[in-house]
């Protein structure tokens, strides 16, 4: 039993931390977020050169062949820096789907350019009515003479503004709520019949609602087997939930550290406000919330390493705990920073907003608690 990171993992961690410290200070990030694309292409190239974009992909596909723990290290550090570049949508979701579902030709043609930083990707899976139910899918892909015709709308597509390529979840058979009959398609973001409505989210993500109007797809656009996409999507979501939890742990630790530092320097009534017991005990509570979240993340990672499917119950629990504990951590961080905590200028609120979006991504605490209950107390 050990909970140490390997030397290699420590090096990746240091490398990202150095980037955040040297090249990603708060003013720089603000400028990036306010820029035309809401991300920095230069930074993305740096990520490629430093090898971060290759970490989860198999060596055979030109990747680093990293484990889920390697991915966790990356996400935690990106979280600490509140890095806005679309690692999660491009590498974890889009790349993860291509890597798991793609045939050799698809993997070769796409992953290399993802790893090289040339291709940005997105996964289009949410619909207006679907909330967190992946099976609730009205977007359809009808067989045509030489492929498929795609029709429908996906909403809140992360990185939808900048993605060059999309993986789209669409129905090839069955009714709206059927688990079966769902398939994945690789779609060029500029293909004829694809139109986008762009909008920014509170955590500075650039998302899009994307409409597919008789988009003609070749047979080679099908990613994986027709009709059984959910199995692979659920595998990728398992990775994605661990990635998000890792990012959340990074953010929670940072919020706690910033808040602690602030209460040691901010003076009121002639003393540092950190000398007040009313605040001290609450900071112990937020410290415990962070450590507990980290512990449960470790449990999930360790179980995943033994057998990914065996981690599912713990991953549901993790999403429940992150939801609950992050609310405590960001709530207290804002409160203890007083008036400054509710300004746009200070970073605290931005960290909070990212945590809120993490909670709302791929199922919130209530959603995962129901899943946990189904798996744990089923008759």
């Amino acid at each position, binding site marked *: *039993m*050990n*909970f*140490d*990171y390997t030397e290699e993992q420590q090096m990746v961690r240091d490398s990202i931390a150095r980037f955040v410290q040297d090249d990603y200070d708060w003013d720089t990030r603000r400028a990036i977020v306010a820029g035309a694309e809401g991300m920095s292409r230069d930074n993305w190239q740096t990520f490629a050169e430093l090898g971060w974009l290759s970490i989860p992909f198999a060596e055979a596909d030109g990747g680093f062949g990293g484990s889920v*723990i390697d991915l966790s290290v990356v996400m935690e550090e990106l979280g600490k820096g509140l890095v806005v570049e679309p690692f999660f949508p491009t590498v974890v979701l889009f790349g993860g789907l291509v890597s798991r579902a793609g045939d050799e030709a698809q993997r070769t043609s796409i992953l290399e350019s993802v790893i090289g930083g040339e291709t940005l990707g997105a996964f289009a899976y949410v619909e207006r009515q679907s909330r967190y139910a992946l099976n609730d899918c009205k977007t359809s892909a009808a067989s045509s003479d030489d492929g498929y015709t795609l029709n429908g709308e996906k909403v809140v597509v992360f990185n939808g503004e900048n993605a060059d390529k999309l993986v789209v979840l669409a129905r090839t058979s069955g009714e709206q709520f059927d688990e079966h009959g769902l398939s994945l398609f690789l779609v060029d973001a500029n293909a004829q019949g694809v139109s986008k409505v762009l909008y920014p989210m509170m955590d500075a993500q650039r998302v899009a609602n994307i409409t597919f109007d008789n988009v003609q797809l070749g047979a080679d656009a099908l990613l994986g087997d027709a009709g059984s996409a959910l199995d692979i999507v659920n595998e990728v979501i398992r990775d994605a939930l661990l990635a998000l939890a890792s990012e959340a742990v990074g953010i929670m630790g940072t919020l706690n550290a910033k808040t*602690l530092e602030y*209460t*040691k320097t901010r003076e009121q009534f002639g003393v*540092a406000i*950190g*000398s007040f*017991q009313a605040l*001290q*005990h609450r*900071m*112990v509570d937020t*410290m*415990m919330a962070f*450590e*507990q*979240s*980290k*512990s*449960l993340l*470790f*449990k999930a*990672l*360790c*179980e995943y*390493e*033994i057998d990914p499917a065996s981690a599912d119950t*713990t991953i549901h*629990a993790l999403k*429940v*705990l992150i939801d*609950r504990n992050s609310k405590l951590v960001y709530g207290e961080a804002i409160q203890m920073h007083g008036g400054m905590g509710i300004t746009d200028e200070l970073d605290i609120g931005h960290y909070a907003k990212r945590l809120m979006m993490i909670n709302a991504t791929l199922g919130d605490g209530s959603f995962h*608690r129901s899943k*946990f*209950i189904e798996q*744990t*107390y089923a*008759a």
Partner: protein
Amino acid sequence: MDIALAAEDLAFRDEVCNFLDTEFDAEMQAHLKSKGTTGMVAWQRKLHAKGWVAPNWPEAHGGTGWTATQKYIWESERSLRGIPDVVPFGLVMVANVIMGFGSDEQKEYFLPRILNSDDWWCQGYSEPGSGSDLASLKTKAERDGDDFIINGAKIWTTYAQHADWIFCLVRTDNSGKKQEGITFILVDMKSEGIKVNPIIGIDNEHNLNEVEFNNVRVPAKNVVGEVGKGWTVAKALLAHERTGIAGVADIKRTMHLIKEAAAKETNGGQRMLDDAGFQQRMADIEVELMALEFTELRTLATMAAGGFPGPESSLLKIKGTELQQATQELRMELAAYYQGVLPTDMDPSVLGHEFGSDARRAFMYGRAATIYGGSNEVQKNIISKYVLGLE
């Protein structure tokens, strides 16, 4: 990072299971349920015969030399079977103090007797006027030749009515800061001038006591560590107590009992296990418990590697006791009306219920957990000062 059990760990688990399943037999179970200390002493001696009574002692003194993983396996298998942990006052608390600060003579005399459960120990820390502010204690020990003469009173002394020895913090000097002038001393409970007054607890049981000292003569060689340095000794003991106090395995056992009972308890014909509200209550506790288990494992792993437990360890007492109480409360709710049943010899078939009285007793006794070993509020003071660096 990994938690996969190695072949030798699996073999160890088999050995533990075999031992517990053989030795914790019906006779032993009945013995442990009987009043008094003889059942516990018999069980601890069985553990000692196997060499397993003191997993946290160094091997040189008769500990097991177990790895963190082995300790975890032991705790899990023990609590899974509903086997109580050893009584901590001798085997955990005073033993650690004697090993860390005691004279060779004290080690040679007391440690083997503690291992063999020859003496029943109790803890003399709190006083009627000194609870959370422990350093304000007033029980006085005055030097008289080769002896100290002790006067004063200790309170909340668990099992003092059974005890052969009490380890005490006493005041040997009043002149400096209140933390100075405190001395750690071992007192024979058969000494003249000691009086034990029972205190009936909120659980309707007699576990707690007040211990009066009236001119009690104690040899100066019973001081552990230096005279006047008792506060240092006491703090070391509390740190030890904190890391072992989460009791995750026992909380899991309570959750297991709750789930078992919830499959039988019904409301309007529906099992409580299928009640949505009750399921959510269970899930909220279990999620936190799963995390706490790994917080404890992280601490074990750090300590096994020879490191000092990090910030994750300081929350073990707080979170552990909160979760203990949360599970105890849930079990009470599950018992509905029967949660109010007082101690009784009535047969469950006559009473109409299995666990109501047990749940009440555990819940009531469990109120102490957030108070003893330094109340949770004091724990938060300690964490904010020593971990967060807040003054």
